[in-house]
């Protein structure tokens, strides 16, 4: 008999690949992994490795003064690749600002993701092309958007039978973290989504820290236990296990799509690096703690499994490292080549329809700037 809610949930942590790289079977979720063949397993590893290499390159670019800021995700690759690979093209994703791995699964080019961080754009990519929304900097503000988007999906799919929903139904994945789980908008979003049976999968990456504040300050109980209070299923999954994450997210999306309402997933993971490039984890956590999580690294775990089952050889990793370096070089080249849009462009984007004040200020701005051109011309004479 479990002595506490936390202990009971610890027993319920869904895990397919153990930290030692052993595959376990699961009575419910094995059915959601039947199509996962050797190629897919290698592809998952490749996705995670490419994401990590991109993250490393972006961190370097920030250190070299080429990005305003970077938000590393090292340690969270399995949670992101596993959940992202569970989605269908028609599903709409609302990320936080750290979902670089999910972006890869949605075919958003890595270099495009740097526009925001390079100060070139307030967004960076066209959300409509890949159904992958812009990053949201204000914590949890994207969660009510996800509920509303899914409420609208419900309106459009009204009257669909189960077969049509399963085949063509759309769903929404709302990403957030342990920190943003405490925001009021997380709460309101979950109330709305549950009251209207909206097809949202709330995917929380509990990476144990809200910048410096440890998880215990955000919640006395595992976050998944909040799901019941809203009336939705809650799943606690090992977020460093790409197969377990894939399986539970597939289950959750199927549930949401079928019209049964939202699902809450808590993916237990660990932010191996800093919150952002402006952060310093040595001020708030012990290196011993980081050492405890290092063996649970999602890439190490899958590599062990792949090697022990002879699904890869050294050449696989050598080729992958080479491909990753080439990708990183391309990303760096693209990012450095982004043209800086003139401020005049920003005036055009404030309103969708003509606005006299903006037009007037633009005219003033252009005239003012043109004055410097005259001065420069005078100087040349």
């Amino acid at each position, binding site marked *: 008999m479990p002595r506490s809610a936390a202990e009971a949930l610890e027993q319920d942590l869904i895990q397919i690949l153990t930290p030692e790289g052993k595959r376990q079977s699961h009575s419910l979720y094995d059915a959601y992994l039947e199509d996962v063949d050797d190629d897919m397993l290698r592809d998952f590893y490749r996705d995670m490795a490419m994401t990590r290499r991109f993250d490393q390159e972006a961190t370097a670019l920030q250190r070299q003064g080429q990005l305003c800021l970077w938000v590393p995700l090292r340690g969270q690759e399995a949670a992101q690749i596993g959940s992202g690979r569970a989605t269908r093209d028609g599903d709409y994703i609302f990320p936080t600002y750290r979902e670089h791995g999910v972006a890869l699964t949605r075919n958003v080019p890595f270099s495009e993701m740097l526009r925001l961080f390079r100060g070139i754009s307030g967004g960076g990519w066209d959300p409509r092309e890949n159904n992958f929304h812009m990053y949201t900097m*204000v914590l949890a503000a994207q969660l009510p*958007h996800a509920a*509303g988007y899914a*409420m609208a*999906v419900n309106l459009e799919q009204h009257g669909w039978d189960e077969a049509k929903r399963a085949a063509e139904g759309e769903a929404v994945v709302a990403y957030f973290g342990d920190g943003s789980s405490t925001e009021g908008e997380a709460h309101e*979003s979950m109330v709305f989504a549950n009251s209207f049976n909206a097809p949202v999968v709330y995917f929380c990456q509990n990476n144990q820290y809200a910048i410096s504040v440890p998880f215990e300050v955000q919640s006395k109980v595992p976050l998944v236990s909040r799901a019941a209070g809203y009336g939705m299923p809650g799943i606690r999954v090992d977020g460093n296990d790409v197969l377990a994450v894939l399986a539970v997210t597939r289950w959750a999306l199927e549930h949401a799509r079928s019209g049964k309402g939202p699902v809450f997933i808590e993916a237990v993971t660990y932010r191996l690096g800093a919150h952002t490039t402006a952060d310093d984890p040595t001020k708030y956590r012990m290196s011993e703690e980081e050492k405890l999580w290092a063996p649970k690294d999602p890439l190490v775990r899958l590599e062990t499994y792949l090697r022990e089952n002879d699904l890869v050889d050294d050449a696989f990793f050598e080729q992958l490292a080479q491909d990753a370096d080439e990708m990183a070089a391309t990303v760096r080249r693209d990012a450095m080549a982004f043209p800086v849009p003139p401020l005049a462009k920003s005036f055009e984007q404030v*309103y969708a*329809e003509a606005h*006299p004040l903006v037009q007037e200020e633009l005219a003033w701005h252009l005239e003012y700037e043109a004055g410097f051109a005259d001065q420069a011309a005078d100087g040349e004479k």
Partner: protein
Amino acid sequence: MTTTMTLAKAITSGLDAVLENNDRALLMGEDIGRLGGVYRITDGLIDKYGSHRVIDSPLGEAGIVGTAVGMALRGHSPLVEIQFDGFVFPAFNQITTQLAKMHARSEGRLNVPVVIRIPYGGGIGSIEHHSESPEALFVHTAGLRVITPSNAHDAYWMIQQAAECKDPVIYLEPKRRYWLKGEVDTEAPALDAFKAQVVRPGEDATIVAYGPLVPVALAAAEAAREDGRSVEVIDLRSLSPIDFDTILESVQKTGRLIVAHEAPTFGGLGGEIAARVSERAFLSLEAPVLRVGGFHMPYPISKVESQYLPDIDKLLEALDRSFAY
């Protein structure tokens, strides 16, 4: 066709027309379904359009506006109701950091045509947080449009224009004028929602007002006539953008300007209008632009609100000061 109706009923009819003409439009808010809203503005619409288009939401303003943003991203046109001016602040984050900026952040790719209806203003003898005028906060936020009707005809048309606008629109309803009756021409082409209107022509001074104070300004102008002063009254109608051309044209004629609003004068729209007019019509001015508005205090208890609110006497006093300058 012209019909006499209250300002409240004109909004109801306008919303009815919006729902009738646009399949993608829907209403959402607290108590707006069966009850028809605390001011009954949506009365009867749930029966006509169903609970999927007239949605009784859970109680949560951030949720209401935030989900409306999500619906708009999916191609719908939500018109949401905030129950009272003082209750909009839980949604303030969604309005200012999300709704207002979505178009700009996406480099113009995404439109979020959300309309937020807010009953505002005082003079209704209510308890705290039910009588506020927060318009300057929204006007200060780029990306939002802010409009407010002062009569039934405008109320009917401007809500429809707000719904058709691709930008987010804050539609402020002068709640103490909900029962003000007026003629609504349901066929006449509407004046642009973002233009001001001269509602009383005059030669000697101009009063700019909007929403609940337009009838007060008209009454003050009538009283001033008895003193031999011809006062022009402009109904601003749109608070963002502001139609400065109409104001400047008037001031260039009259040389005197009073701006009146219930909101506190400090940091309010009156200051913005005064600054712009002094920049562009300085030499036309016979006197400094004067403001008549609320004091720098939380909206007062209702038993003394009449001393706080701009009224005819305060406007006449300001006119006296302007003419005495």
